[in-house]
């Protein structure tokens, strides 16, 4: 019997038992769809994080106080006070691979204008901060070096602050808002960046001169961090090296002494994020893959029932000349047909859900093309592996007993 005839016979067998075939496919459909959706969410999250981090500047370097680890214990970096004004000044004097530098001091709290209030974070920065983080001013101007020098009570605000405090259609430039009872005059409005992938509103932000935040709000003499940008992304490593030398020298760290600060590049953060996302995706996909295993066992079950039920047919086919190998192949093709049809339907379902339903819930998703090929291949394998035992059972039947089976 040629292979084409076998396919015809198998298609007929599947089509003659539509309900049963569909039910045994269901496991595969759901399993494959789950795998594809998980992969799509994983891939989508990775892409959106990457995109977002790159909107913050791919050449961004962040210096934080405190070492990553000290004596095996992770330190709380915000409690450390190693980054001082002197460090900032040294960097500004000696920088070669670094272009823009901004010390950073933050304070969270309520901001009030008239009857309206909202909770936000005030970032104390230098004017160079906007270039480092790729912010642009939509309306008005940024504060100046002069404002920094005088610790002037001026701020640049994000779009969300404007809508929360002023509503639509009001020009906030020149208006005075209060943060922790300190009045501050708005000099500029930032162009909106939208939400990031953690669901954080990036426009819920107030940027003030760092001196203002240090002296008037937080009352501290040290920085929470220093952000800078390397000349290019490629020069990030050279810039890190340079900054490390400057800071070690400034902090009088000699020889084997550990750094009392940490410098992270954006590329490094991206990598960490990617690795984390990959791990999460892998866990999800493995969980979904287990459902495929269960689905395969389901197919084996149905095929075993089907073989028993069709004992007489098998006997007849053998009597009129089918060899065991041909019978085995017929049932193998049948189980592959079920698993592959289920797989294709699952791919369709997974793709549809990933493209339409997942984004509707506000989650990023992007179906990687290879996940479709892999799913398809996995389905073929499931069909072969789980169809093998039933097919052998059919092939090993004795035609004499099979044909008289009732």
């Amino acid at each position, binding site marked *: *019997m*040629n292979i084409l*005839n076998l396919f015809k*016979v198998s298609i*007929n067998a599947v089509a*003659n038992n539509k309900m049963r075939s569909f039910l045994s496919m269901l496991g595969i459909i759901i399993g494959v769809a789950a795998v594809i959706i998980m992969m799509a969410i994983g891939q989508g999250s990775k892409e959106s994080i990457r995109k977002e981090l790159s909107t913050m500047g791919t050449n961004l370097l962040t210096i934080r106080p405190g070492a990553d680890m000290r004596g095996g214990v992770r330190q709380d970096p915000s409690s450390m006070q190693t980054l001082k004004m002197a460090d900032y000044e040294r960097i500004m004097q000696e920088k070669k691979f670094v272009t823009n530098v901004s010390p950073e001091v933050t304070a969270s709290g309520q901001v009030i204008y008239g009857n309206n209030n909202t909770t936000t974070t005030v970032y104390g920065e230098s004017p160079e901060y906007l270039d480092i983080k790729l912010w642009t001013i939509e309306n008005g101007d940024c504060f100046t070096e002069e404002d920094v020098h005088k610790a002037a009570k001026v701020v640049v605000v994000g779009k969300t602050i404007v809508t929360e405090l002023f509503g639509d259609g009001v020009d906030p430039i020149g208006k005075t808002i209060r943060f922790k009872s300190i009045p501050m005059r708005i000099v500029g409005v930032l162009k909106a960046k939208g939400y990031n992938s953690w669901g954080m509103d990036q426009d819920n932000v107030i940027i003030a001169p760092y001196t203002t935040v240090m002296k008037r709000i937080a009352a501290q003499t040290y920085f929470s961090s220093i952000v800078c940008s390397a000349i290019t992304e490629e020069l990030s490593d050279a810039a890190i090296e340079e900054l490390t030398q400057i800071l070690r020298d400034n902090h009088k760290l000699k020889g084997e002494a550990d750094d009392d600060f940490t410098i992270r590049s954006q590329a490094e953060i991206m990598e960490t994020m990617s690795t984390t996302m990959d791990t999460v995706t892998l866990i999800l996909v493995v969980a979904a893959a287990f459902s495929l295993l269960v689905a395969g066992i389901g197919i084996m079950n149905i095929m075993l029932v089907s073989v028993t039920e069709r004992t*007489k*047919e098998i*006997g*007849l*086919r*053998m*009597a*009129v*000349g*089918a*060899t*065991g*190998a*041909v019978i085995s192949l017929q049932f193998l093709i049948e189980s592959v047909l079920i698993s592959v049809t289920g797989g294709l339907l699952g791919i369709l379902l997974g793709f549809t859900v990933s493209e339409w339903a997942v984004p509707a819930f506000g989650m990023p998703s992007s179906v990687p093309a290879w996940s479709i090929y892999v799913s398809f291949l996995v389905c073929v394998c499931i069909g072969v592996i789980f169809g093998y035992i039933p097919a052998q059972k059919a092939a090993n039947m004795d*035609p*004499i007993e099979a*044909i008289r089976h009732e």
Partner: protein
Amino acid sequence: MAEKEDNRKCVIELQNVKRYFQVGSETVKALRGVSFKIYEGEFVTIQGTSGSGKSTLLNQLGCLDTPTSGEYFLDGTPVRRMTKNQRAKLRNRKIGFVFQNYNLLAKTTAVENVELPLMYNNKYNSKQRREAAIKALEAVGLGDRLEHKSNQMSGGQMQRVAIARALVNNPAVLLADEATGNLDTRTSFEMLVLFQELYKQGHTIIFVTHNPEIAEYSSRNINLRDGKIREDTINLNIKSAAEALAALPKPQDD
């Protein structure tokens, strides 16, 4: 018989065929040494009660099983030492089976059922297969029911399809196992009429049955008892099944 042996082709030859089964510690002797020859164009009934070994003999003749000892030649080919796959091919080319329960494929048309044996023969392409199937169905009087599905047919029609399926590969021998066992009297006679027609056309037919009446319509009767041939007689006075059918009372319409 002996005087005719030389000028007729021998289709089936059994030489002291024995078949023993091991059931637990006991040996069941189903066939205790059976020898006979069947020539081309004979209509042989193999008749015996249950337990006489006729089913075992049928399995031997149909190459579904092999003898414990002795030898079986089908159309000149020795069968005893053949592998399973070789026997499958031999069945496909040389034997046409008709079973008691028709054994048609469910939800499948008459013509597709008849095509089945040819599906396992690579020498036929799909067009030749269909042509052969249509020819066989016309030969059993079902030329007008090619596309009827097996569940839309009566018992008699189903058995006709089964006979067409047995004829489609042009077998050396037609093997019928209680082919009228599931049919009412009238339909049984219709089947016998068909078998007699096939006999007249020159087909070799072996009809295994427990019913002694059927022997009257065949050309030769082999009677089995306890795994041995009790009697092997040529029937010189073959009854006409067509006449018997005509003599039956007409079915009452109510």
